[in-house]
């Protein structure tokens, strides 16, 4: 009787929906698991840090996933845009520091200097993206092997140029005064910049989704991800759209780099490679070409990284590879990717 009743409810609400809901509830529940080993206060601190890291990862993963989905280009130079953004942001903040707008700034000055650093990193990232797309990647459309090889080389060159211009050593990134320190909410220490990073990440996610869902450009991009030829047949210049998307992705990665620098308060020439690894894991978890998938994947990776880094520091990257492997095992095309 009991089982019949359950079946009836399942039928009434549509069995698939219930199963989907159960799936997502379980998926959400997993993130409470670390509570068994971490006390709640620390858990909340780590959660905020994890979300902040996830948002910043999302900034570079979003570009990577759209570029792959639309252009079928795997851009391994994406991490280099990220590192360039960080270094440009570093220079901007250093310059502003000379004006007293960073270390001893008022609230307004702090916000302006952070925004300025982000904006310049955005522009520089976009500019580099434009050059890379027009000069190099355009020549290797449709050839995965060459794309991977050549973007790897480009990434190497860009990282080396960073070392030439800024020197090969780690640098300390200045953080404007209003973003230093932390809030204390009922014993939970929340770093101010982490809050800013979460807000910025959510804004970018909202913005990207708005463009993708509500504008004509977004419709063209989504149609292009589905079927490039048809979009071309309808008279849109797909090459111009490719370039635009590539620039946007590179710009987001550059901005993410600048924010990452302020988040970690330290930048290194190798940070691009590190970020690329994370972004690739995020994109695989989320599914190629899916922005929301990347967003979820980035949150997962950020949270898992922080919990495990607290419990077993050495395995922090390993756990993300493990998550990736498990997800590929269950859903080979990623969380929200298209089934092929």
């Amino acid at each position, binding site marked *: 009787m009991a089982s019949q009743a359950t079946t009836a409810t399942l039928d009434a609400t549509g069995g698939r929906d219930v199963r989907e809901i159960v799936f997502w509830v379980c998926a959400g529940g997993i993130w409470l698991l670390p509570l068994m080993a971490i006390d709640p206060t620390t858990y909340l601190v780590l959660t905020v840090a994890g979300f902040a890291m996830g948002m910043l990862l999302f900034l570079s993963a979003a570009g990577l996933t759209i570029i792959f989905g639309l252009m079928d280009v*795997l851009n*391994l130079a994406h991490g280099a845009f990220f590192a360039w953004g960080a270094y440009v942001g570093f220079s901007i903040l250093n310059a502003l520091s000379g004006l007293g707008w960073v270390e001893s700034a008022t609230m307004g000055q702090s916000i302006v200097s952070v925004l300025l650093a982000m904006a310049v990193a955005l522009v520089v990232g976009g500019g580099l993206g434009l050059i890379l797309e027009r000069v*190099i990647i355009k*020549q*290797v459309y449709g050839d*995965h*092997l*060459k794309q*991977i*090889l*050549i973007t*790897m*080389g*480009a990434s*190497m*060159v860009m990282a*080396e*140029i960073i*070392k*030439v211009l800024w*020197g*090969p050593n780690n640098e300390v990134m200045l953080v404007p005064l209003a973003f230093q320190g932390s809030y204390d909410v009922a014993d939970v220490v929340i770093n101010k910049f982490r809050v800013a990073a979460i807000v910025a990440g959510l804004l970018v996610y909202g913005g990207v989704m708005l463009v993708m869902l509500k504008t004509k450009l977004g419709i063209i991009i989504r149609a292009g991800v589905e079927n490039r030829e048809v979009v071309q047949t309808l008279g849109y210049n797909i090459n111009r759209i490719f370039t635009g998307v590539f620039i946007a992705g590179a710009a987001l990665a550059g901005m993410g780099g600048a924010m990452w620098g302020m988040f970690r308060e330290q930048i290194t020439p190798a940070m691009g*490679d*590190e970020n*690329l*690894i994370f972004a*690739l*894991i995020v*994109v*695989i978890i989320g599914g190629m070409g899916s922005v929301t998938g990347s967003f979820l994947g980035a949150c997962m990776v950020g949270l898992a990284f922080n919990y495990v880094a607290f419990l077993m*520091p*050495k395995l922090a*990257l*390993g756990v*993300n*590879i493990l998550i*990736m*492997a498990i997800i*590929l*095992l269950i859903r*080979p*095309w990623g969380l929200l990717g298209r089934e*092929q």
Partner: protein
Amino acid sequence: MPAAEFTPVQLQRLREHAGRYSRPSFLIQIALVVCLAAIPLVVPSFRTMDVVAKIMIFAVAVASFDIILGYTGIISFAHGMFFGLGAYSIALVCYHHPAPQYYHLLLAAGLAMVLSTVVAVLVAVFSLRVKAIFFAMMTLAVAEFVHILGYQWSDLTMGEDGVSFKLPGILASTWDGGQFLGTQLNGRLVVYYLILVISVVLFLGVVRFVRSPVGRVLKSVRDNERRSMALGYKVIHYRILSIVFGSVISSLAGALFALWLSYVNPDTVLGTPLMLNMLLMVIIGGLGTVYGGIVGAAFITITETWLPDLLKAGVGLLPPVELLQRLADRWVLFFGLAYVLVVLFFPKGVMGTIRDMVARRAAAREKA
């Protein structure tokens, strides 16, 4: 037997088989091996011997990379990692044993092969189910993870300091065999010849593999996946086989590398620069040519040894501007530029271009 009973492929093979000892390429190979064997006797400088030994080791590693990259068309960023697994197997077995014997080296080689097979199968099974391109991404992540592990699992790997170890018996650098025909016999020389023999065997193994029926199937998978599937080949099985074979050879090359240096650390055998070097060697030598591996390995190893000095000397002639000085320190930058240019404008590599020229000349002769 009348020729009609053979398929065209069989006929071509028979023809190749009959003339294999008289072709110029065979003579070049023999000459090459003789040269390599003579080098320590003729040029007694250690630096030359070091460069030549590294060229031999990398030629094997790159040839095995070519199986995956050139013959199967799959990009693996973990080839350097497998190299490192082999190197660390030898190093750790010899380090953790108070008095290593010869059989420990065999044991370590076996360990390297088992380890790399397991890792390669796992990564391949997980990623190839979806798309071949996933393999590139997963190997990148896994290789980075192992690199970090090499740094941080310091109970096992000694972390950043690396592992330096002693080799058994006549392989030890302290062994002294006295004079023989005017040459000082020592452990280094013995290891050199050991590397020569093993790398020739491994290289011939790779050549045999790509010319076997399996190698032919791999090429067909690379050129047209769907058609190979339609012909009834399990594409994924062949891909996994190729990845595993290439990775195992790479780990053995890594073991040789550890033998030669009697020292390993995470950056030299697990780091990204190693993997990039290997990629560069494959591309410069020529994808899908196997023998290109020798050319690529020789070119990169020699450049890498002399380029920094050359750049420093070159900058000495220029006005002392700081930016120029820094540029001279960053010779990887020039490597990267060369790499991008080669991929763009010279995609067939040295051996590929030579083969094209030979083929074109043969075609012209047939016409005439």
